[in-house]
Structures are given as C-alpha cells and as structure tokens.
C-alpha cells in the first residue's frame, strides 16, 4: 500500500518535470521571436539635462538591456534583454515620468510568414497587432514597425490616423504601420 503510494508520488514528480520541460520549451520558443530593439524620439525638450532624465528613466526598466541616446535629436536607441517580455507601454510611461512625450516609436519585430489582412487583429507572439495601410503584405524575418497609438505619435499625426485605429477596450491592440 505504502509502496504504491510512493510509486504514484514518484510518477507525479516525473510528470511534473516533464510538464516543466514542455513549458520551458514553449516559453523559449515564444521568447525567441520577440521585439529586439526600438527607436524612440521624445518631444518637449532641447536640453541635455532633460534628455538625461529620459535616459535614466528608460535605463531603469527591467527588460531594457541598453540605451544609446542622440541628445541633439532627442532620440534613443533601446535594446531589449533576450527572452524577456517587452512592454512597449512601459517605454512611454518612462518618458512621461521624466516629464516629456513620445513623438515617434519604431521597433523591430521577428516575424514568420505573417499575412497582414484587412480589418483583422493579428496575434504575433502573444501580442495583438492591427496593421494600418499595409493590407495584403506577407511579413517574414525582422520587420520594423511604427506604433500609431495616441501616446506614441504627435497630436498632429494622431488627428490624421485617428479614424483608422482599432480600439478594443478589453485588450491591448497595438496599431502599427510598416
């Protein structure tokens, strides 16, 4: 009786290990195809002290590997850590915390035969994307995308694309263009 109990327990332990192996394999598969880097231009500043406060704020983000800044153009080249989930909204928040706005954000995404269709939200690696003005294209490999959501472009630009954006109150859908 006790022997059977231990056997079951041992089997359970084996199954748990197997389950963990599968989970890890899945996670690393997802993580490999992720956002590699981003280029962000901030607005509302000219001085290097202002730029430095954005730089410090971006560097503090846990999934950010490195930040290179171009002070003259208020822009930042951000490289993300491998195998970590990249939260694009956290970049905007970091800039806002420093007291400034995002004027432009482009990021490089790994894709594998993604067909961009009309009026469709496409799931890529657990993130939802809605492509604007790029219908019928097939994406493969590293693709640079521009984020078109309100907090990531200038108010002027937002006015132009406002009516084309996909809005879902339930989940985060990234409006992008190629």
């Amino acid at each position: 009786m006790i022997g059977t109990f231990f056997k079951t327990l041992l089997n359970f332990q084996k199954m748990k290990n197997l389950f963990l192996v599968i989970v890890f394999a899945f996670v690393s598969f997802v993580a490999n195809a992720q956002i590699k880097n981003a280029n962000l231009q901030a607005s509302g500043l000219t001085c290097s002290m202002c730029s430095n406060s954005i730089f410090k704020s971006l560097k503090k983000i846990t999934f950010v590997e490195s930040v290179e800044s171009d002070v003259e153009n208020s822009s930042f080249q951000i490289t993300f850590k491998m195998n970590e989930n990249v939260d694009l909204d956290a970049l905007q928040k970091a800039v806002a915390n420093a007291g400034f706005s995002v004027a432009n954000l482009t990021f490089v995404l790994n894709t594998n035969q993604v067909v961009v269709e009309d009026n469709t939200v496409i799931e890529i690696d657990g993130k939802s994307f809605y492509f604007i003005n790029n219908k019928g294209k097939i994406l493969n490999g590293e693709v640079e995308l521009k984020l078109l959501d309100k907090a990531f472009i200038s108010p002027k630009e937002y006015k132009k694309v406002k009516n084309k954006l996909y809005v879902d109150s339930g989940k985060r859908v990234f409006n992008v263009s190629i």
Partner: protein
Amino acid sequence: MKGTILFICLLLAANSKAQELFVYTEPASSIPAYLLSARLMSSFFKEIDGSGTNINFIPEIRYGISSKLMLQTQAFISTRNGNLYADGGSVYTQYKFLNNDAVKRHFRMAAFGRASYNRADIHQEEIETVGHNAGYEFGLISTQLLHKVAISSMLSYERALNNGTEYEFPNTQVNSAANYTLSFGKLMLPKKYTGYKQTNFNLMCEFLGQRLNGNGKSYLDIAPAIQFIIRSRARVDIGYRRQLYSTMQRSAPNGFLIRFEYNFYNVFRKS
C-alpha cells in the same frame, strides 16, 4: 549699467535656442518623477542704508512625486544679525496641469503654492516669503519653449503674516501683493550636442515685479544670470539682480546669488 543689462536681455530674447532652467523663477515644467534634487543658494545683497551686506543661505531639497507634482522644502539662514541664524523655512508644491509637447517645443502651465515660516525682523515694505516674511503665495506659471526662444511668465498672490511670535506685521504696511515675472533663456554652448558629458553654458534674463495690493506701490527688477550644466546632472547658477525702479521701501534690492544643484535619479522608485 541698467541700460547695458537691458540691452543684453533684449538680445537674448531676440535670437537662439532657449533654456528654461531659470535662476530666479520656476518654469511650468516640473522636475521628473523620482528625481531628488539638492540645492544650495547663497545670496549677497547690499544693504541700501550702507550697513553692509545681507547674506542668505537657502539649502533646498526637491522631489518629483510624479511627472506633474513636485514637492520642495527650503531652509532660510541669514547673517542679518551678525552670526548665522536660522530664520525659518518653507514648503512649496507645483502641479503641472497642461502639457503640449512637440519635437523641441512645448507649452506648459502649472499652479504652485508656498507656505513659509520666518522669525526674522520685518524691515521693508517689499513682501518676500522666500527668506524674509512668514506667509504664503500661490499662482500660475506658463512656459513656452520654441526651438529658438523660451519665454516663461508667472503671476501670483503673496500674503505676509506675522514673523514668529516676536515680530508682528506692521499695521502701517500692506500685507499682500501681486507678483509678476517674465523670463528668457538661451543656450550658448555647446553649439551641437554630442553627449551628456558636455558642459552646457546658458544665459538667462528675467524681469521680476511686485505691486502691493492696498497702496499700489511697486517695483521692477532685472536679473541676468549665467548657468553651467555639468555632466547633465549638476548645475551652477550665478545671477545678479538689480532694481529698475521702486516706489516702495526695500532694504537690499541689489545683489548677487550663486546656486549649486545636484540631481539624483530614480530615488524611491519601485522598479
């Protein structure tokens, strides 16, 4: 002398890139969230009656609670009575309620309030809750940064109370005033940014005015300043404030100030 300063100020306003880290006033832009800024200001104002120099030290700590809300606390130390003497202190808060950003430009508006304690003797008609009078002040600031010119303006109401328990506010004087300022700034160096280690050299010029509410007495000062930003995190200000005109009695309107500032980023920040 006044003419020369005025001319330099107008030149500043006319042309070039602007900086809004003003020396005598605050811009509407708040400091970044989680920024802790330590400052020490020393001012040297010549007493108008020839009795010497009025030296004040104002150590200051400021912190960005959010990108919109800033808190600041100051201590007022003076040598008016010979030795170093702690006259009082103040708490100041500023809230940015409007923020329109574009690349290399912005328009921002903020509301601010200050409450001050002071126990020094009251020796002039001018009301100054930074270092001289106990009291309070609240007002509005607007700052416009255009690629080449930054202009900032402040309007406030300031009210003086009794200084400590010993010095009542004289009932022969007016205890409230309206303040108004207009500031310009210019980045002189570097011509082109290549990194954070470059020392920035800025020129500022500010106009500072006050009008007493009861009797309409007023003054207007001009305050040019130079500023060095070191490694994009420390700052040295050297300013000279001079009275253009005054119809009120002021004990020491003309003088210099020097200020050091050092910034610590991501303080008390949950990652």
